């Protein structure tokens, strides 16, 4: 029932290795929670779900096209401006913006404007200098 870890694991396994650097990096780059990427990492689930629901034929390009289309739709419907081929700068008309405000786009895209529930740990970052 010995739990002694093989010390060479620390060199071979990159996750253990990076843990040994964490104190030096705190001095160089600040607190580790300031560069936490857990929120963006949850996008993995969305990508995975899209790939699983596809017909498994070239899923990556369809995934990128799908995300691109969603981003374009949210940009246009929220009143964004873009340049046309003839150089004119245009934005969506009042009808499109009214539809976006009515919640229809949210329903189609599966997004929500509700407030998020509080997380287990703090979700914001903060920094105070030594003098504080």
């Amino acid at each position, binding site marked *: 029932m010995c*739990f002694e870890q093989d010390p*060479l694991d620390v060199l071979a396994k990159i996750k253990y*290795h990076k*843990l040994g*650097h964490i104190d030096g990096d705190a001095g160089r780059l600040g607190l580790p929670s300031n560069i936490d990427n857990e929120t963006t990492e949850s996008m993995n689930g969305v990508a995975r779900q899209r790939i699983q629901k596809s017909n498994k034929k070239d899923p990556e390009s369809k995934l990128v096209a799908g995300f691109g289309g969603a981003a374009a739709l949210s940009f246009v419907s929220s009143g964004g401006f873009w340049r046309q081929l003839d150089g004119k700068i245009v934005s969506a008309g009042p009808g499109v913006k009214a539809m976006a405000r009515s919640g229809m786009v949210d329903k189609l895209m599966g997004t929500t404007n509700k407030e998020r529930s509080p997380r287990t740990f703090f979700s914001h970052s903060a920094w105070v200098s030594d003098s504080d």
Partner: protein
Amino acid sequence: MSLFQGFSLAQDTSEDILHIGPLGILKYKWIDTLNIVGRAQVLPILARLSTRGISIRKTEVGLYIYRAGGLVGKDYKLLAQLVPFLIAILHHHGLVDDELARVWYSIGRLFPLLYVQRAGNLSEYQVRLESIPVLRRYILILSISGSRNFDPRSIPCSSCASSKIRSMFSPKSSITS
């Protein structure tokens, strides 16, 4: 003159605490612990622990044990707050050895420091990180191998370093204490 003078790819790359903390050391140690102690033995004790102040549901306790390798970061963060107390109970009854208990107490001290939001004095924060036994052991191993300031693939002589580390960290030595 190099375009990136003064920039070190190994040192200036930021950490990814999700993968080295919850999905790294915590996941591996949790799976190891379950394999050593036995899943059936852990389940009733974990289910009876008080989870006041932590958003863990009693119905999910089985998931933390029988799907130990497939949880998400949120679940491992909950485990980081809960398992040191579980290990304290198991250690009291002699079901786990001192080494395993020491590792889990270290993890219990490490995680609040990883997710700390403010540090009035950064050097003091670094000192507190270095005082954690598991981290001290890792830092020592990296220093001996000469890879503390380099990419792991550019260790000067990996076989020399390996034999040196093996001789210093024999299985029975208690460097972590």
